[in-house]
């Protein structure tokens, strides 16, 4: 049987505020346990939540970027369950009236575009952490993370493959970091994904029973976990078994998913509006003010790069992987006046080098101005692509401009017709066999001759000119 995969994803995006969602405690990561848990996070008797304005603003930013409805009246609700990392015994979240609803996010899988529906995004507080090691059978509770603001972004079950799921979470990741609402530090848990997976026989209308893989904090784990889960479900069904709705955890060591043993008897969360918090009311002026400050979004920028710089859609997608990268590219493209070359270099050499050194574009040793200088020398024929790479190497390890390196190392391409003609004549004289083969119709022989000329020029001869002059002389 052919199976169709159905995936929906919930992402917990930690918002990069200075203080917590409901108190003035710091959100900084990595402090000593419980030193950033105020009376509010510890749920002392009588303490009350007061909402952080920045959380609302950031939620609106994401809502606008997702082309979603911003609910101008939205309501916080209590989600009740007992867990030691949840000090109040309830999580303040949003249920019936979230701040953001009905959004959409465009993804690109290969060359194919698809729009994934975003059901909702709501504001809520993060829980603390339970540490299980080193306490003789006890767990240690650290509430520093409790109260960190989250946006839970819930997609429609619109994805039909792991590739689409990956494209969606990566697009969302790009967006939240692009908007500056999330620091994007996945290792610190700033972007955590729950993936709902089900399978159904191709052609069947109803969804299959889903299992939810909780709390994935890397794209690689998401890919591994979803693949494993899909295969497990298909195997189970093909063996005549049934998939039971469940929450599972992914174990990166074994590469398998397993059912969670705890969490809630029958999940009766008893949601109701939090009486400590009044409805959040957002006026249109506030939304418009935020809209006015919105940066150009990745989708719009991709289209513009294609139109303005003639780059391919695929390249534009890569170039808008982050705002810093896009800005870098755009500067290079504009200063050098060479959009396509700029795209090739940024997506090629620069990306490879950064990847090799584990660096971000912000740490790139070659700034946009220097790269533009290099590209200008390629465009005006001063450097062959081979020489350009040589200059690039030197630039990576120094602070010199392309021109300075060309000058210093004498790497200027030789385009002087007289000089090239002289070298071509010498090559023809020294390689009668190749000349004979070429004249007999063997086109490849010309390359051998050109290679000799390049060698004689120490790589500096303009390759196009060499070809041209060779052909002319042998004609």
């Amino acid at each position: 049987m052919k199976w169709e995969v159905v995936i929906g994803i919930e992402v917990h995006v930690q918002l990069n505020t200075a203080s917590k969602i409901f108190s003035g405690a710091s959100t900084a990561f990595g402090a000593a346990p419980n030193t950033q848990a105020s009376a509010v996070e510890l749920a002392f008797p009588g303490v009350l939540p007061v909402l952080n304005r920045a959380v609302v603003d950031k939620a609106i930013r994401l809502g606008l970027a997702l082309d979603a409805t911003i609910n101008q009246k939205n309501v916080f609700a209590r989600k009740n369950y007992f867990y030691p990392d949840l000090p109040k015994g309830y999580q303040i979240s949003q249920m019936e009236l979230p701040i953001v609803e009905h959004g959409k996010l465009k993804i690109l899988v290969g060359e194919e575009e698809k729009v994934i529906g975003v059901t909702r995004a709501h504001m809520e507080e993060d829980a603390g952490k339970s540490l299980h090691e080193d306490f003789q059978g006890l767990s240690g509770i650290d509430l520093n993370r409790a109260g960190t603001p989250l946006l839970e972004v819930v997609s429609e079950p619109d994805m039909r493959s792991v590739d689409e799921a990956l494209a969606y979470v990566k697009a969302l990741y790009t967006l939240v970091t692009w908007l500056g609402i999330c620091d994007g530090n996945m290792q610190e848990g700033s972007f955590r994904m729950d993936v709902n997976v089900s399978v159904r026989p191709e052609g069947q209308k109803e969804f299959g029973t889903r299992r939810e893989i909780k709390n994935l904090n890397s794209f690689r784990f998401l890919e591994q976990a979803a693949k494993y889960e899909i295969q497990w479900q298909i195997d189970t069904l093909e063996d005549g078994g049934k998939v039971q709705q469940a929450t599972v955890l992914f174990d990166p060591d074994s590469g398998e998913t397993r059912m969670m043993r705890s969490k809630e008897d029958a999940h009766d969360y008893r949601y109701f509006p939090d009486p400590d918090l009044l409805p959040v009311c957002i006026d249109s002026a506030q939304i418009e003010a935020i809209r006015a400050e919105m940066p150009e979004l990745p989708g719009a920028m991709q289209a513009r790069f294609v139109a303005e710089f003639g780059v391919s859609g695929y390249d534009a997608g890569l170039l808008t992987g982050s705002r810093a990268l896009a800005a870098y590219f755009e500067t290079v493209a504009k200063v050098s006046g060479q959009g396509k070359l700029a795209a090739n270099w940024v997506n090629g050499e620069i990306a490879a080098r950064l990847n090799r050194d584990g660096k971000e574009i912000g740490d790139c040793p070659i700034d946009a101005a220097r790269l533009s200088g290099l590209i200008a020398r390629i465009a005006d024929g001063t450097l062959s692509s081979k020489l350009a790479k040589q200059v690039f190497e030197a630039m990576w390890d120094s602070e010199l401009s392309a021109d300075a390196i060309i000058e210093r190392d004498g790497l200027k391409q030789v385009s002087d017709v007289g000089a090239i003609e002289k070298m071509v004549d010498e090559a023809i004289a020294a390689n009668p066999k190749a000349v004979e083969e070429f004249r007999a119709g063997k086109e490849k022989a010309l390359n051998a001759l050109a290679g000799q000329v390049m060698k004689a020029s120490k790589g500096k001869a303009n390759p196009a000119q060499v070809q041209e002059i060779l052909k002319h002389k042998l004609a």
Partner: protein
Amino acid sequence: MSLTHQDVARIAKLARIAVTDEEIVAVGAQLNNIFGLIEQMQAVDTDGIEPMAHPQDVSLRLRDDVVTESDRRAAFQAIAPQVENGLFLVPKVIE
């Protein structure tokens, strides 16, 4: 309506309150009396009435995103049942 003993046991479980079998019987009877009182509401037609969650019809006030709290762990944990290395200790949490 009437709460069964299973209902009472389920509620007690949700509320994380240990109850003995005898307590279930006694509490069940009291809860049923209370719900007898509460059931009066069902006779009232409330169609089209907007639920009132709050006495005042005002919107939420927001605070600026500023860190105002300092570390008071020592004072807060001085009254904690069990702590070690700055962590609150509880019986093992199983995920």
